[in-house]
């Protein structure tokens, strides 16, 4: 006969302790990343922070004098570039969203077996260097080039010039050129997170919405778009943050009137050699972006970024 042996009371059973080695695994996994960030992010930050409150000159050397006035002076002098940076980055982000959303939607829901091909096409520009791609835009937008010629013939440039985006029959060395460059360069950073969050939406939710009297437009407004918010938030952040600190596009496609804060920092560091001002500008930019991003995430109300 099969019988059930009586189990001793729970209190007498020795409790098995989890192995210490197993408990340490998460920390071991974190270690390489932590070391990397410490050396290449945390230490330089501290160094820059100290630089920003130093005074002195290249000849006599710089001393930490807690001279916070540098921040105010730098901001006072370069606030137009700050505003311009945020404006250009913001415009480029909006353009990326307008261009990227339909494409991401297409890849996620309509591309079928072409999905991977289109995705590779989205990433394809990364096979060429950022610099070369931006230089190519210089050729594309060159004075008297085909693009400018077409825009001129269609009188598009009259409108954009009236708006202050271009000047006369030039596109190069205007705000439009810089914004176009930024948009082009950061578009994949918008499309990929958008695609990821759209692709995760269960197609049956669209059917369910349609079944519950929602027209295709309402389905998009009430179901698809809200569910793609994580992608919209991370896409706009991945576009806006690097774009606001970018200097390559303004350098290659703009003139002195299109200088962004990145260009100022670059020239302060490498040409003027005023390290405290350059460091202070970097910190101001970081603070502005941090505040804006925090407010934005709060308003967007997203709990999880893709």
């Amino acid at each position: 006969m099969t019988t059930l042996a009586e189990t001793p009371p729970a209190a007498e059973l020795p409790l098995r302790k989890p192995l210490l080695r197993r408990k340490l695994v998460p920390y071991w996994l974190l270690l390489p990343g932590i070391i990397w960030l410490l050396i290449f992010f945390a230490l330089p930050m501290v160094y820059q922070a100290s630089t920003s409150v130093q005074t002195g000159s290249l000849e006599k050397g710089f001393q930490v004098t807690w001279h916070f006035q540098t921040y105010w002076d730098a901001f006072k002098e370069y606030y137009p570039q700050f505003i311009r940076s945020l404006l250009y980055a913001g415009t480029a982000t909006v353009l990326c969203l307008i261009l990227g959303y339909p494409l991401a939607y297409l890849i996620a829901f309509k591309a079928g077996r072409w999905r991977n091909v289109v995705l590779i096409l989205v990433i394809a520009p990364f096979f060429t260097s950022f610099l070369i791609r931006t230089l190519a835009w210089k050729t594309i937008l060159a004075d008297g080039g085909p693009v400018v010629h077409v825009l001129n013939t269609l009188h598009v440039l009259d409108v954009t010039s009236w708006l202050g985006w271009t000047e006369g029959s030039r596109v190069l060395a205007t705000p439009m050129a810089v914004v176009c460059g930024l948009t082009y360069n950061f578009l994949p950073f918008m499309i990929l997170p958008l695609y990821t969050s759209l692709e995760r939406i269960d197609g049956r939710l669209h059917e369910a919405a349609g079944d519950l009297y929602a027209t295709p437009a309402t389905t998009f407004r009430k179901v698809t778009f809200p569910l793609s918010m994580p992608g919209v938030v991370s896409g706009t952040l991945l576009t806006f943050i690097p774009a606001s600190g970018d200097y390559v596009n303004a350098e290659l496609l703009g003139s002195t009137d299109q200088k962004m804060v990145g260009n100022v920092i670059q020239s302060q560091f490498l040409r003027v050699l005023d390290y405290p001002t350059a460091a202070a500008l970097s910190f101001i930019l970081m603070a502005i972006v941090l505040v804006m991003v925090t407010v934005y995430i709060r308003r967007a109300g997203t709990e999880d970024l893709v």
Partner: protein
Amino acid sequence: MTDTSGGDVRLTGISKTYGSFTAVHPLELTVPQGSFFALLGASGCGKTTTLRMIAGLEDPTTGTVFLGDKDVTDLPPYKRPVNTVFQSYALFPHLNVTENIAFGLRRRGIKSVKKQVDDMLELVQLGDFAHRKPHQLSGGQQQRVAVARALINHPQVLLLDEPLGALDLKLRRQMQLELKRIQTEVGITFIHVTHDQEEAMTMADTVAVMNGGRVEQLGAPADLYENPNTTFVANFLGTSNLIEAEVLEAGSDITVTASGAKLHLPAGRCSTSTPTRSGGKLLVGVRPEKISLAHADDAAKIPEGRNRITGRIADSSFIGVSTQYVIDSPVCPELEVYAQNIERDARLVPGAEVVLHWNPEHTFGLDAAQSMLAGTVGSAGTEEAA
């Protein structure tokens, strides 16, 4: 939206082809208003495609869908007065229970939804969960939200696409009764797609058994069970013992012979295509629970006038309310017998010689020109495409 007159669902010549594959063959089907109708079949039999064509989620290749007198074939889903409870529910993850349920009302421009939503929450007994998000609910609760979300619109027809498939057995039984209660309470036509024959029989007034894109038989559950027209229905709906036999004497009471055993069956219980003239081949069917078992020693005690077959018990399994026997007989290799565990004969163990006997009235006849295995588990018949 409920229309009290002429709200039948009528499908005329409806079919669906994907490339060279025909999912649904031209189909004529009428679902009377207010009925609980089940489309029953194995996966791939076309039942879900049929349902989706009624919902407007699939365009029929041919044919017309009528709701009442209205041709809705070309209407997009959002313009049809039907609502669907989807398999896996498809609740909106970003909306709470209340907003999920109110979704349809809001789309139709109804602003004050609170009263209706509260009533609906009460109907499905989810009053305390109004502000939860779908992922904070159990499977059964999600299922009820899905039902409430569809029902609140008072659709002309409620379509249910295997809505209980994801639930465990106990919960499924409970939800079956609950759905039946709701249907009786609201009086809306329910069309329920399922592969679970017991579910279909428990809930529906009328069951359509589908196989290979065609409706094999349509009728009340008891009718289908007692008088299957095809071997597929006989095997898919419950279990049937099918015995190949030859007609000896025709008439209102048919006498057949199967490997020497003489069996009787009423002509009225033969499907229309069954040859009932003498010399014709047919399949004699009898349900396992209709058969009684007697030990061979007690053969003399069996009353006259019953069909009887001798055999040997090959296997028996005790399942609580009943014991299921597999009997090896010269007439048929594997006869199944379900005996209620009322008085158990200790001699009925594997190896024992037995006599199977049953009332001839409980015998049905089928056309022998079809596969005996159609509709059994793993048979090709259930996945038949052409």
